[in-house]
């Protein structure tokens, strides 16, 4: 996982710190989404907000990677790259940063243990 991910995420979105060992998890809202994929565009309905989102493949891959596991940011980057069939260095840090920030804003992902703190 290239180190630049953490720098980018940390500077773009305040809640994403530089600690690559912290883990992210799907929220309850992130687990109840309805999906439809057409042509690498994902139409996603979020019942908790009654909103319909349009996600690109990177954002969809991040969500998919968190479906079963709590993952560190490094692991999310690796799995997302794998899901997109990209090499480890081919995944744009900007894309990943944008996806994580968007998903957090929508309340679909959170830091592991956030709810307990």
């Amino acid at each position, binding site marked *: 996982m290239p180190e630049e991910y953490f720098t980018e995420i940390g500077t773009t979105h305040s809640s994403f710190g530089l600690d690559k060992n912290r883990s992210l998890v799907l929220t309850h809202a992130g687990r109840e989404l*309805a999906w439809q994929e*057409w*042509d690498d565009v994902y139409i996603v309905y979020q019942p908790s907000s009654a909103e*319909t989102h*349009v996600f690109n493949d990177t954002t969809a891959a991040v969500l998919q990677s968190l479906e079963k596991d709590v993952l560190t940011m490094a692991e999310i980057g690796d799995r997302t790259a794998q899901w997109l069939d990209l090499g480890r260095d081919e995944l744009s840090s900007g894309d990943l940063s944008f996806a994580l920030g968007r998903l957090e804003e929508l309340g679909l992902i959170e830091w592991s243990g956030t709810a307990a703190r």
Partner: protein
Amino acid sequence: MRVGDLALRKFKSRLATEGLQVQFGPFVIRMRSDLASFASLAHQLYHHYPLASATAMTDFHVQITRPRWLRRWLRPQSLFTLDGQSPFAPYAVEHALPALEWGINWCIATRAHHLLMLHAAVVERDGQAIIFPAWPGHGKSTLCAALIHSGWRLLSDEFGLVHPEDGKLLPIPRLIPLKNESIDVIRRFRPGAIIGPSFFNTRKGTVAHVMPSEESIRRGHEPAEPRWLIFPRWAAEASLTLKPIPKSEAFLMVATNAFNYEVLDNTAFHLVTDMVQACDCYSFRYSNLDEAVTALNALTSSGHG
């Protein structure tokens, strides 16, 4: 029994007293009016519409009547009311029929949330429907009027009504309001089309109503399967183009075009998703109606769409 089966005198009398229950697709509308000029016109243009039975549940109680205040004598007006409430400012009395038609649209758009409502024209042939979602000025009604005079059955001009249980399209074959230049365009396209009088200087310009065929109204209870989603756009002098568009794009256009997508939440998402999945999706740009109808007939006859 149909509206036209009542003698005009009896029609007027019932309109002015207890009202008439008329079936418009899935809706029963009890209409009342004390306007003699409106009654004569309504008797002609609603001729083929079925009267609902006396025991049928009424969906909307509407009236188009003279306001009570002094103005009625100075410059006569007509006032649309729903359940005794008047959501709109009065109209000129001679605009009573378009006012009632717009009022019924408003009733449906604001209250019929048991159905998904697309802002779309829908026509059917052989059980399969073309849905034309469109925004004002895109030529939806003109194209719809041309198609129903070219072998297609009218399901709707304004509301694409989607039944939540099975995703089928419900007919609501009401009068088609043509505006401004479109009126003469349809008169030239099909001189035999039955078009009511032109109402000048309405809030939407000049308006005239095309009567659906008797068959479309008689089959007003037969739903159809969505098969093509076509987004029309009329443009003067434009060359005809009919281009496939990605389903994701079609989804977004249908969802944003629906009257009540956000009201129906999850149900709307699944209905629109299923509809887009079942349909071939195209953008359609046209200027000439003959060319447009020929192109759509060719597309829908080709089997694979």
